[in-house]
């Protein structure tokens, strides 16, 4: 039963459907084992945006406050898209490579251990 309601066949309104975001989709980006940032960040971006733009123009504003961010080697960074290993194509749009509305991208940089090597 999708909900226990007094109204038969009750359907909830999906508040976060993509149409509500004025042409954008929401993409979350998190940096594993870097707890300086308390959570992954949420970004409203056009589905047509290229991965390169997301990486180099959208996310640095917040992530660059970490002193290791400038040392990230994007060639060797490992990515997860919605929990699955993922190899991003830099010049392809988010949508065309399966980065959809409310997808979560996580990047992993095992060689960077965080502030004081503590995963911060």
């Amino acid at each position, binding site marked *: *039963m*999708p*909900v*226990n*309601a*007094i109204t038969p066949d*009750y*359907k*909830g*309104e*999906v*508040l*976060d*459907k993509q149409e*509500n*975001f*004025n042409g*954008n989709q*929401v993409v*979350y980006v*998190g940096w*594993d*084992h870097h*707890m*300086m*940032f*308390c*959570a*992954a*960040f*949420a*970004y*409203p971006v056009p589905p047509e945006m290229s991965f390169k733009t997301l990486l180099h123009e959208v*996310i640095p*504003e*917040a992530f660059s*406050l970490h002193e290791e961010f400038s040392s990230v080697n994007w060639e060797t960074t490992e990515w997860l898209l*919605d*929990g699955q290993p993922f190899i991003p194509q830099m010049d392809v749009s988010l949508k065309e490579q399966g980065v*959809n*509305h*409310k*997808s*979560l991208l*996580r990047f992993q940089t095992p060689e960077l251990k*965080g*502030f*004081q090597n*503590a*995963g*911060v």
Partner: protein
Amino acid sequence: MAKKLNIKDKYRLLTRDLDWDFSYEDRKEAFPFEEFEGIKITDWSKWEDPFRLTMDSYWKYQAEKEKKLYAIFDAFSQNNGHLNVSDPRYVNAIKIFLTGVSPLEYQAYQGFAHVGRQFGGVGARVACQMQSLDELRHVQTQIHAMSHYNKFFDGFQDYSHMHDRVWYLSVPKSFFNDARAAGPFEFMIAIGFSFEYVLTNLLFVPFMSGAAHNGDMATVTFGFSAQSDEARHMTLGLEVIKFLLEQHEDNVPIVQKWIDKWFWRGSRLLTIVAMMMDYMLPNKVMSWKEAWEVYFEEAGGALFKDLARYGIKMPKYAETIEKEKEHISHQAWWTFYTHGHAAGFHTWIPTDEELDWLSEKYPETFDKYYRPRWELAKKMEAEGKRFYTKALPQLCTTCQIPMLFTEMDDPTQICYRDTVYNGDRYHFCSDGCKDIFEDEPEKYVQSWLPVHQIFQGNCGGPDVENVLADFYRMNLGADNMDMTDSPDEKRWKQWKGVA
């Protein structure tokens, strides 16, 4: 002359005798909410009234308490009681209370008024009606207790407006909305039993003893005045669960599912209390971990042993919750510290003494995982770059808390869970929150997630500053940002004559 009634007769006439039989109308139509949750009630007369209080003695009793309470509020105010708090940082704890907790008392009043109409048994109706009145009294007296602070400190001015809008206040608000949108029996297990009976000690005791330890007479006095009400509410919570479990064995799995859900939701909600105890009280009472052990593991453990004879088990996720006591306060205060530009109160780096106190209280986790975060914050502050996060966080669809919780066995890794429902993906901070969603997705697809609402343009804008100032009505630079150099701190120094 009419004979005066003895107490027993009076009680019967003023409670049970208020009911009537339905001779020409269908009883089911009078109580339409009673069956859809699947709970089976075979005999309402088996309900044992927990309060044994008639309305006239209730009024008399409450009026006496009120008189004493307001006498103390007046004295507090006339004697500039705010000058006696331990440190101006303390006042931020009661800003959270007024914006996050007091409006829940109002929601409890609404919720109990609703179920006080909908139960078929008159004993349960009368008990819920009285609790409803208590809750209304609590919200009023809390507002009065804290109104004195509003004259001298920032951040108290728009508490109810903020409760409906501010990102972190959607956590307590949606918790109660969830309970109130459920059927009457689930509401009673959620609020009457799980919250009032088991978890209330972890909300009330920390705030009230925190007030006592930090010289806040107004809030302490409110606490004493509410104590006898809380004792009655606990009795009602216990009566509800026993009654449901004794009425029909088919009720057991339904009640167990609600216990699992509401203990999880309750423990998530209490994260803010954990952070308050460990980080916001200048004079500490005990650590969150200690409070959790005393009030949940010992007291709650005994209760669940008692309920085992009905076939009720410890709440699901109890093992995860046990591990979380080592972590959640640190993870939460770090979140607020790094979002101090968007909070309705001040944040700060713990002092060196406080950091040492935390190491001592959390020997397994603090130095290893959390002290480095504060070392980083200190370093950045010393370089003149006080750390404020520059993007909005991902939120959990169920509890609406930023996804700040880590895997408990891997505390430097955020815990990510997700599910796809009708083609849309939903994210959760934990297995508990994910299971709750998957059980009733049509309910939680409606979550009003503040970050997404901002993106949709429903909260003003275009910038975060516009959202904070116009939609949330925060006074930027006064209500928010670091405690250091805040107007609150400057005024305090002026009053105390320190440079």
